[in-house]
């Protein structure tokens, strides 16, 4: 279906190719997962499939890419539209029409299909993706998960044989991500569509993949294999695989279900063990830094927060969880003074954030927004750091020093737009930290981050908490929450529905439990390192079942 023959791609202004001499053959009805660090060339590989590279992006492509026999050199993207459907990273940015139904029909109109065919396919697609109730809704009024499904539906109506998705679940809450993945699963199994998908959140998708392509970056050759083969050696792996590797399980489990079936002996080891305590690392001398009292915030008719009360102490790391649109961002915005309370109060260190300006605000509370790039407006990293020093009225060089401690590899002359997603996040973090705010807020910090950057972020956050900062993360990433949070607050429809110690809140929850907790339930161990710390890798391994036992 998809064939790459000796493909090398070099962008204009670059001396080195981003991908070199790639040979690849993907068959019909395969679900292929593309993984790799940010900037490794994943997106380039995906875009080469429908000819966006090089027709749209520029650069040179040598060798050839054949899609069902059509050569992308002679077929620009619009002539492959009936064969390849592309869903971009941010589906909302690609919507053309204003209602769901018209959006689904747009591609077919461009192909010139007859109107009874269009009508039939729209109805089929609405049913296939469970969109029927949304058909007359404006696309912009939908939630992120619904938009993602509409974007998939919009390319499906052209009946493509290949579906290309760039990080389809990165912006979604766990439930919405499940919905998308099961829809894709159905397409692969029932319609025989070839799905090529890039995704950083391996723990969500690895179990569905038929093959995995690792793009190592720096024009190194691709590594291709089945998920089992790949996960045995891969430097990055979801927690279930990590646990399986340490425990020596064979075959290596990829899903929670498989792992749970072989984890019986391991669970037996945990009986009577003290579960790991996630204590406030700052010790007992904690001060109350943020206080929200019966906070209610309304936008017009819509109530974003209802009667929320929350106290945050120094040294705490709070994970704020809940579905898209539950009010997480609104709460963070209220704490930093971007939103006025309709009723109730919110104070940080005794002051109303709405009344604070300039350095008074910066020295109390800092927020790294969902798109950290919003904070950056200078033309170089050095200028950005100098501006941050001025804003915070601190000694020149403070921000750069902080940045060096977070990410020493970021050069002074780089334009902030040329940084990777993760580097931009760390730069924004350094800018926010320049004024030493005791309260640090992060909105979806791991969106689009690869594993190595995520591990680095976890370290940074732990150190900050140890130094006495109070940190609140709004996140969908259950593994991140399990890794750093001392406390989890779950919001639903603007109300606090759970607030407590991490393990107590997440272990019993089907949506927010991390993989390890699901495998080991009812025992409250949340991460691989917790398990290793409690039992020790040697004992763990000695209790591994042999492959014969595992599935009997």
């Amino acid at each position: 279906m998809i064939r790459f023959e000796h493909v090398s791609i070099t962008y204009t202004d670059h001396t080195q190719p981003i991908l070199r001499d790639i040979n690849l053959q993907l068959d019909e009805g395969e679900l292929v997962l593309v993984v790799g660090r940010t900037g490794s060339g994943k997106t380039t590989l995906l875009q080469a499939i429908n000819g966006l590279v090089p027709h749209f992006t520029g650069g040179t492509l040598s060798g050839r890419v054949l899609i069902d026999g059509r050569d992308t050199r002679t077929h620009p993207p619009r002539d492959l539209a009936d064969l390849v459907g592309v869903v971009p990273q941010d589906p909302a940015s690609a919507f053309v029409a204003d209602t769901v139904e018209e959006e689904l029909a747009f591609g077919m109109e461009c192909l010139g299909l007859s109107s009874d065919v269009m009508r039939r396919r729209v109805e089929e697609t609405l049913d296939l993706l469970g969109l029927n109730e949304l058909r007359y809704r404006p696309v912009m009024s939908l939630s992120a998960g619904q938009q993602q499904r509409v974007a998939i539906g919009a390319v499906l109506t052209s009946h493509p044989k290949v579906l290309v998705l760039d990080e389809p679940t990165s912006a979604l809450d766990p439930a919405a991500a499940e919905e998308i993945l099961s829809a894709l699963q159905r397409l692969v199994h029932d319609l025989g569509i070839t799905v090529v998908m890039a995704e950083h959140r391996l723990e969500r998708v690895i179990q569905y993949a038929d093959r995995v392509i690792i793009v190592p970056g720096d024009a190194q050759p691709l590594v291709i294999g089945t998920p089992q083969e790949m996960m045995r050696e891969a430097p990055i792996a979801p927690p279930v695989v990590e646990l399986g590797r340490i425990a020596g399980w064979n075959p290596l489990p990829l899903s929670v279900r498989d792992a749970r079936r072989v984890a019986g002996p391991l669970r037996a080891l945990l009986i009577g063990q003290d579960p790991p305590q996630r204590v406030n690392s700052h010790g007992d001398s904690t001060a109350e830094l943020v206080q929200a009292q019966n906070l209610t915030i309304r936008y017009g008719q819509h109530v974003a927060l209802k009667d929320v009360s929350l106290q945050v102490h120094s040294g705490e790391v709070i994970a704020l969880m809940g579905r898209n649109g539950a009010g997480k961002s609104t709460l963070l915005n209220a704490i930093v003074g971007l939103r006025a309370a309709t009723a109730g109060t919110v104070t940080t260190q005794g002051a109303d954030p709405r009344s604070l300006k300039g350095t008074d605000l910066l020295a109390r509370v800092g927020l790294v927004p969902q798109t950290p790039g919003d904070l950056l407006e200078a033309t170089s990293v050095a200028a950005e750091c100098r501006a941050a020093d001025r804003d915070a009225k601190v000694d020149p060089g403070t921000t750069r020093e902080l940045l060096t401690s977070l990410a020493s590899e970021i050069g002074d002359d780089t334009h902030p737009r040329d940084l990777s997603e993760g580097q931009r996040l760390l730069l924004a973090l350094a800018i926010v930290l320049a004024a030493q705010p005791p309260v640090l807020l992060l909105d979806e910090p791991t969106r689009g981050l690869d594993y190595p950057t995520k591990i680095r972020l976890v370290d940074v956050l732990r150190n900050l908490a140890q130094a006495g900062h109070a940190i609140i993360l709004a996140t969908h990433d259950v593994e991140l929450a399990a890794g750093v949070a001392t406390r989890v607050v779950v919001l639903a429809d603007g109300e606090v529905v759970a607030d407590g110690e991490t393990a107590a809140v997440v272990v019993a929850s089907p949506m927010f439990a991390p993989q390890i907790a699901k495998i080991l339930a009812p025992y409250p161990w949340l991460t691989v390192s917790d398990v290793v710390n409690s039992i020790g890798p040697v004992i763990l391994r000695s209790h591994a079942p042999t492959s014969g036992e595992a599935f009997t």
Partner: protein
Amino acid sequence: MKAALACGNLAHARWLHPGAWWVWALGLAAAASRTLNPILLVLIIAVAAVVVAARKPDAPWARSFVFFIKLGIAIIVIRVGIQILFAAALGTTTLFTLPSLALPSWMAGVRLGGAVTLESILIAFYDGLRLATIIICIGAANSLASPSRLLKSIPAALYEVGVSVVVALTFTPQLVADVTRVQSARHLRGRVTKGPRAIAGAAMPVLEGALERSVTLAAAMDSRGYGRRNANSAAQQRLAAVLLIGGLMCACFGTYGLVAAGSPWLLSTPMLAVGLLASLIAITWSAKSAIRSRYRPDPWWLPEWLISLSGVFAAGTFLIATWLVPLQMTTPSDPPTWPALPILAVLGLAIALTPAFIAPPLPRVFIALPRAVSAEIEVAA
């Protein structure tokens, strides 16, 4: 035609072709432009309001009618106000006298204040009311016909223009969202969020964001097949577009010439004819060469005929009435007289009111329940 009549079940809920509403509203506006009789003008507004109330969909763009009413009132107030303050008094029935200001000799002819007569106020009021009525008719079309559906039914030769307008319309709210986001970011960095410096600081990121978004959108549209066409037809398409725009402009000038009093109709009639012909050729031509098709195009069935003809009928009765009973159509204000009620024009308006009853009812729009609620229902079931 027979099939079209058969399909046009009046009771069947569907969206009326937006073109039909526009023809109806323009007919009313044309009628309004022919009269200075306040009773007729108020009747026209009433007809428009009743039809809007009966067939207005529940959508953001449909709420604009109230805005147009307010605009109409503002027009009348301004028109009368200008008359009172600046214009020379007509007639003899002085209502009151404003303190007048003696102006220097080089401004002779301009008057400030002075006597205010009933006659001049009436003239200004009728004049303002006429303009307000025309504006309100346009407003009625605006809130009855969805702008995006209207764009969808523009001829294939202008398809590219139509898509650009739709995309621009969806872009604007996103740009507003961008501005808010950038302002929030400035707040987070402890900088000023108001004033010229803030605008200068925000301009760059907002423009960059918009540029990035348009590149993404262009890539997405290209990937979905936008701009696919038959070989060799690019030049033809361009020619068709030029022909269509030129033809429409020609037709516009011609129509103006016909409607405006005092222009040579010997020139304007051929102009209108040539313009219409050119547009027609362009439309059929580009419909042949384009590959793209249209999803659920709005049909033009019996209700569309009836509704657009009712507007045209009203305009026709007004035209005939001005010819038959010119004095009843323009209410003399010097000396002030009671306006008459020309039966023919009222009959025309009665016909123009029928869309309130004969237009197909609006389809019910299903709004999905929030996820939490539907989950509860599932659990309960």
